[in-house]
């Protein structure tokens, strides 16, 4: 089974370090164009949500090198302004991880911004509950029927159906799951069932099983619309997977009749042990994320101008490194914004400080910005959603969290 073997080898044992870094990458998108997308003379905005699953160490990605307590807390893995792998200065206080030169360039071009000391309303430390909160948009875990981005789509004026879309991986991320129809795609590496067989099966489902009918009908549409060439993962590692997913997403989202709003999820950020500093495990992952930014920009071409990419994670990691040169589950972290529509070139932070007394529960970066404020700001100013919809439907019971102003050009 040459085809099967090719899939199997994706998880074949090779170098053990590479295996640890193998990460998933998924993408899905709204099945419709917003009505305003094709309006004459109007802006044609695009929004891409990137979920980093596993809890990104914000202090290791955008390091507060100007904070007197940072170096001691992050110890051997702390970034520095000097040395053989100097961090990239963003301003007099914050510096960016050296494996993110593309994001740094975007920042200099004022097309990228960082929000620091940010967190969802979730304050415990379970990945899975934290991801529920991040993606569902509810204030607490366990609400997994729909995601905030899907509910935001429900509030947009619906235009024509997209004719191309792509999703890598067999399930849509929660953030985009829900009643508003989504499309996705998994790479075709199997010979496909004949259309006639599929049609007959659809008819059987139509009589016997509505849920399966709906799922299969959608699955067939996606398969048709996703183009094959250039969209197969070259296999291997998380870096390639992130680039691949971003490239595919950008290609489809650049098209005139392609989706405008999509979501990707990248796994593998749970760096409990041997996280590494300017080089090492996290550095490797961040270079993949940086590659994804590059693919977004290149692939979207002229559309990059009207795009906002939001990158967020379920929570941060401990300010203090643990006993195994890594970090355990924490609270405050970063969110990244990139795209031609971002009012960039700044690190937005109400910095809480890193003295023990300032840390959340004396262990984590204290969150001073609610992630929902950031996302609301983008959704309001980029997609024109009202504050009321954002406070009631998209992020239920979040009236007290006001949209952050001025994130979008």
């Amino acid at each position, binding site marked *: 089974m040459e085809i099967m073997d090719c899939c199997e080898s994706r998880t074949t044992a090779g170098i053990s370090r590479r295996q640890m870094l193998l990460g998933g990458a998924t993408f899905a998108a709204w099945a419709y164009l917003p009505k305003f997308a094709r309006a004459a003379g109007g802006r044609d905005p695009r929004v891409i949500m990137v979920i980093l699953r596993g809890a990104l160490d914000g202090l290791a990605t955008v390091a507060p090198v100007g904070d007197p307590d940072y170096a001691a807390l992050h110890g051997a893995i702390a970034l520095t302004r000097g040395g053989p792998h100097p961090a990239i200065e963003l301003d007099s206080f914050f510096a960016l991880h050296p494996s993110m030169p593309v994001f740094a360039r975007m920042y200099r071009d004022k097309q990228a911004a960082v929000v620091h000391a940010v967190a969802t309303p979730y304050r415990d430390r379970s990945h*899975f509950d934290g991801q529920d909160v991040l993606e569902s948009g509810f204030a607490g875990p366990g609400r997994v029927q729909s995601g905030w981005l899907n509910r935001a789509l429900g509030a947009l004026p619906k235009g024509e159906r997209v004719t191309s879309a792509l999703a890598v991986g067999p399930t849509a991320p929660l953030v985009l799951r829900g009643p508003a129809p989504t499309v996705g795609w998994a790479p075709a590496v199997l010979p496909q069932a004949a259309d006639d067989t599929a049609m007959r099966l659809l008819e059987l489902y139509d009589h016997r099983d509505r849920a399966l009918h709906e799922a299969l009908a959608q*699955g067939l549409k996606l398969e048709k619309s996703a183009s094959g060439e250039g969209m197969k993962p070259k296999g291997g590692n998380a870096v390639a997977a992130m680039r691949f997913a971003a490239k595919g997403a950008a290609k489809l989202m650049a098209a005139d009749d392609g989706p405008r709003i999509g979501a990707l999820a990248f796994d593998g950020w749970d760096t409990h042990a041997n996280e590494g500093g300017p080089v090492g495990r996290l550095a490797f992952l961040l270079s993949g994320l940086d590659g994804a930014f590059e693919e977004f920009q290149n692939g979207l071409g002229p559309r990059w101008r009207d795009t906002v990419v939001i990158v967020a994670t379920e929570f941060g990691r401990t300010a203090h490194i643990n*006993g*195994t040169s890594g970090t355990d589950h924490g609270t405050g972290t970063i969110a990244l914004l990139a795209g031609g529509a971002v009012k960039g070139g700044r690190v937005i932070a109400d910095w809480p400080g890193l003295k023990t007394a300032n840390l959340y529960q004396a262990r984590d970066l204290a969150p001073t910005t609610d992630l929902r404020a950031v996302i609301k700001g983008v959704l309001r100013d980029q997609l024109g959603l009202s504050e009321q919809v954002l406070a009631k439907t998209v992020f239920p019971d979040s009236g007290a969290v006001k949209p952050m102003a001025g994130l979008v050009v």
Partner: protein
Amino acid sequence: MARDSQGALVALNRFGFGARGGAAGDFGNAASDPRGFVKAELSRPNAALLDVPGLTSTPALARAMFEYQGEVKQARIAAKAAEAAKAEVQPGADRSEGHGQPMAPKVANASGMSAMKPDAAKPAMPVNVVQKTYRAEALARLQRATIADCGFVERLVTFWSNHFCISANKGQPARMWAGSFEREAIRPHVLGHFPDMLKAVEQHPAMLFFLDNQQSVGPDSRAGRNRKRGLNENLAREIMELHTLGVGSGYTQDDVTSFARMITGWTYVGRAGRLGEPGTFIFNANAHEPGPQRLLGKTYDNTGLGQGEAALADIARHPATAKFIATKFARHFVADDPPPALVARLQSVFTKTGGDLKAMTLTLVDSNEAWQAPLTKMRSPYEYLIASGRLLARIPEDPGLYLGGLNMLGEPLWTPPGPNGFPDTNAAWAAPEGMKLRLDIAARISSRIAPSIDPRELLEVAVGDAASNETRQAVARAETREQALALLLMSPEFQRR
């Protein structure tokens, strides 16, 4: 007893891995006594053990892996030396034969590794014993599931294995031990006692590696003071959150940290074998955090290994654990939202019997709910592939087809996306892309098998008179045998359980 077709579907599909083709007559047997059909497997001694020639213990696998890693290292050194020698002797010259293999390692010329053709320029790499082991373990598991009578015990194994999952992608030891972990820590206890399974799991080298506990060192232990290494709370947290109490059951961050300290020193013997036989669990007192610890309101004196074991035993008996396990168990077999009365009974039996899993399992089989709830759950990709193989009476000889199919469908064997295992709800498995891929796989299987079978007969074998008219017609009116078989494999009767 009268024939009970609906009961047969529940017995075969909800509890088992589906009816076997050939002359097994599973559907008829199940229809005449559904409960008896399911229970028959439970009373066999050692029903869940998997003793297959060629599969070996974790320490033996550790030895083989360490040897392999050494050989790889040697081969790399040899390759480098060869490169260097060539560059020195013949700068810019063509590759010459017989040159530059000064230290080529022994290469076992294993079958099935045809890609390993030694090439004159590059010293050959040794056979990848890690991948070879993973495939052999996978094959044994696939074969067992395919030939089992009902498959209920194997379904229990997959349930518990997913509950206490590790990921083969964590690194070579995890891939090497994924199978032996299941054979040694899960299988002996699926009809035994939960506290025993819990202890076997948390002290197994595979789990200690997967959740980093082999690196965790008590900050005030001797090793901690000397080596400036410290605590890693990963295992402690996941034990409480995912293996026992469940998230939101009332424990705090302090409890997690405290428990992490109690299990410092729980590690396995490494390659050098300083503390014992490589690949065996060992309590390393040097790394154990001294002093008493408080967990969930109780103080545990430092008795070394006993400290963490006492805490683990208490966690296993905690009411939150009973509730968490009962809910998950009922969700897996009965419905995404299982009947509360059933969950309550399972919980109560679990509590009263000190976690007797056979008693809990029998309570499930004896319940009315499990037989009356509609068959709405989707088969997981693993269940789907195994059920297909059983129906077509094909005993797997090469695991590649299955492993590839599982990768495609998002359930790679022993490789879940996180320590919470694969999802267990319809939302996860009835997604659009997943359904399309299931159909492609059904078509693929059909193209290889269909010419030799009669799909109408096979539909009888699979679901008997429980087949709907629509499914019968779709199969009967299909254009080709191939198409008919693909439709049968994708029918609601075959996909849902």
